[in-house]
């Protein structure tokens, strides 16, 4: 074997390296399917523009909404406060999503919430009705009557076996959750998963009888939005959920399919009650993660960031 060189020649090495890099480049999702494969879009900018970009980054609204479908948007409009209190979703974020749904061919868009304050006042002050009034096919509903709810079973429920939810989400319509980022005196933060409580009838029992964090995870096993768009254009970092409290302006809109991942990222963007937290430190998110409802560690997420 004398004279024959063992191992790698320079030529081979270069060949191998080049093909490796090429393969790497080609197979790297950022380059090939960049928009479809991101876990999370985090867009900084004005509410409407950022929302538009976030939808685009998630592969466009038509990835979620098909022609002729009914869409339910679930913003937070539970409090009769104006948008600057950051207790409700920014009207422009909601209107932008509603407009996109209609443009994608949605037959009908229902924007609904089970409001905590009196319905008329919430609709009037949250500004969402006003923002959506010129979009045909969009209906804003604040439901406060039990007849608009229907009981469903929670097969995987640990503390909650059945729950009454707004009927509209039970048929084949697309559910898009559009929470606002805010602090919450019982659950730490109130974002997408906590926002699901706006779709159920009996909320009191979550507070008075059940472990609210477990119950929220139970709820998340049956109500699964196809998309969660977190409005962090403003964030109520204390005094939530009802405010008044400290309002910060992260100017961010986040979108993702994984409800735990969106919320978890939302926890990281601002200090809550003056303290920096991770998603893992929010009990209901951790429980949801442990029950397989989504990813919680944001450094493992593929995040698309952009400023518009």
């Amino acid at each position, binding site marked *: 074997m004398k004279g024959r060189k063992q191992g790698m020649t320079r030529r081979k090495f270069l060949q191998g390296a080049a093909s490796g890099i090429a393969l790497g480049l080609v197979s790297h999702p950022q380059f090939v399917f960049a928009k479809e494969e991101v876990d999370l879009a985090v867009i900084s900018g004005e509410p409407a523009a950022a929302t538009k970009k976030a939808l685009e980054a998630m592969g466009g609204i038509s990835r979620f909404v098909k022609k002729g479908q009914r869409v339910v948007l679930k913003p937070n409009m539970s409090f009769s406060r104006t948008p600057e209190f950051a207790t409700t979703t920014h009207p422009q974020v909601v209107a932008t999503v509603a407009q996109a749904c209609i443009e994608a061919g949605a037959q009908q868009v*229902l924007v609904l919430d089970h409001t905590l304050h009196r319905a008329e006042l919430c609709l009037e002050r949250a500004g969402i009705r006003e923002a959506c009034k010129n979009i045909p096919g969009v209906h804003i509903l604040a439901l406060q009557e039990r007849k608009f709810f229907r009981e469903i079973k929670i097969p995987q429920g640990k503390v909650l076996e059945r729950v009454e939810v707004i009927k509209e989400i039970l048929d084949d319509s697309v559910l898009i959750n559009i929470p606002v980022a805010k602090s*919450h005196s019982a659950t730490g933060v109130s974002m997408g998963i906590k926002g699901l409580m706006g779709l159920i009838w009996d909320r009191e029992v979550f*507070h008075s009888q059940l*472990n609210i964090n477990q119950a929220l995870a139970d709820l998340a096993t049956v109500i699964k939005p196809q998309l969660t768009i977190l409005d962090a254009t403003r964030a109520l970092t204390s005094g939530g959920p009802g405010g008044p409290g400290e309002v910060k302006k992260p100017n961010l809109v986040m979108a993702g399919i994984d409800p735990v991942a969106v919320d978890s990222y939302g926890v990281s963007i601002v200090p809550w009650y*003056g303290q920096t937290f991770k998603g893992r430190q929010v009990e209901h998110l*951790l429980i949801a993660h442990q029950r397989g409802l989504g990813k919680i560690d944001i450094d493992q997420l593929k995040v698309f960031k952009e400023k518009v």
Partner: protein
Amino acid sequence: MRKFIQALSLLLFTTLFLFATYKLPDWLPADIYLRLDPLLGINAVFAAREIIPRALWSLILIGATLVIGRFFCAYVCPTGVSIDFLDLLFFRKKKRPGLKAEAHFRKVKYFLLVLFVSAAVTGLSLAFLMDPLALLTRFYTFFIYPMATTLINLVLDALRPIFKALGWVTLSHLHYFQAVYYMSAITLLVFGGIIALNRLVPRFWCRTLCPLGALLSLISPLGIFKRRVNEDCNECMKCQKTCPMGAIPENPKGTLLPECIQCRTCANVCPQNAITFPASFSLGGEYSKIDLSRRGFIYSLAGGLGAGFLAIQTPFTLRQGKHQLIRPPGAIPETEFLRTCIRCGECMKSCLTNILQPCLWESGLSGLWTPKMEPRLAPCDQNCNVCGKVCPTQAIRSVSLEEKTYAKVGTAVLRKEMCLVWAENKLCLICDEICPYNAIVFRPVEGFRRPVVIASKCNGCGFCEQRCPVRGESAIVVVPNGEIRLKEGSYVKEAKKLQLEFKPDPGDDKFLLDDSGFKIGEKTKGGGSLHPEEKPQPNKPKGFL
């Protein structure tokens, strides 16, 4: 023609009634009928012993009656319209027994008038019991309005499948808020009684009982238009039999002017066309006299003064300082409030959240039907100030939203022995979550985070009392302590003087964290097991690990 005007008037009354709610435009006086009522005006002005600007509107009606006569009863009065209409519905074909000794019965309304006015002079507001406009507004509020809501919702429920099939989203989710009131049944009985009395004679109420009619009839003989019968009269007595007010005496050519409401029924039935209502400036001679016996006058005067005395000075009424009533925001000081309030119920109708309820006996005889807040039923919304806007005597002052926020109605008090957190160490925080003013904070006490009310930030809106999940009585209740009742001047200034602040202020939420000095250790990073029955952690904000 008369029926048309009557229908129009009832329609206007009903429309204004419907408008009396959130969000009533500032320019619309929804209480205009009540303001025009001179009996309510006199009652409030005498009882309160001062001029009430809104009551001056009643001078319009007094002036019009002086000029035209007692037309109000026949054309405008919505109670009169209701009586006429229901009379048509129930008793048109019935043979009525008539009223013997009607002249005596007729005096009753004057006695009542004297009684109410003399009671008002002692400071007791009593005219509301029988004033037709207060009475009808009350009937509308406590009966018609909730009843109509129920019916409309039933119809909507029945049609819902159709709306749904047609794809009418808004209609298929339409539901009107169902208001409920104490004393609906009593109010119905009173009104039903008034209608039932028509079985005896038409407009029994107007002829014999209505104190407003009595007041107007005192001045109506001065009016220009008077009934006149010419020579063609053959004394067939048809007019005398059909007159709904019994205003035509045995001699059909005469007219009891105080009783005549110029409805012109007589002119319409006269076969000879002998009856006209020309303008004339003469007083009606012997028939314009109101024969009120001296004895009756003195009795009713004594009755009014006596009632006033009973209501204000004796054990029949509760000591004003002792009551536990929460009055609406902007209600003037209690003594003046009781004197000024005419118990029309308009505030309770207009109330957005249905927190306002009528009192039965809670503040004694002098407080019947006055509005009180029932925070266990509903909260007082901080964005609504409509109760003051619609109050015709301004017993509840019409104030701006900011002023109203500072018109503190009471203070929330935590009953620790019932509170889920204090008594059972549960993780409840609904009162804190719902409080619009951050008046409830959690503080570490004995190793647990416990809710505490900061009285200087609580204006008594009652959100906490309503939402408290404890069954039955709330573990946090609003008591009148600390209420601000001003007859005039700014609530904001007064509250600032008392160092109260009902404003967005996150200060106390921070206090807890800064003080507790908690650290988030790395140990929670790995997840770790969670127990549903986890102990409350006093040193961290709830929900965080």
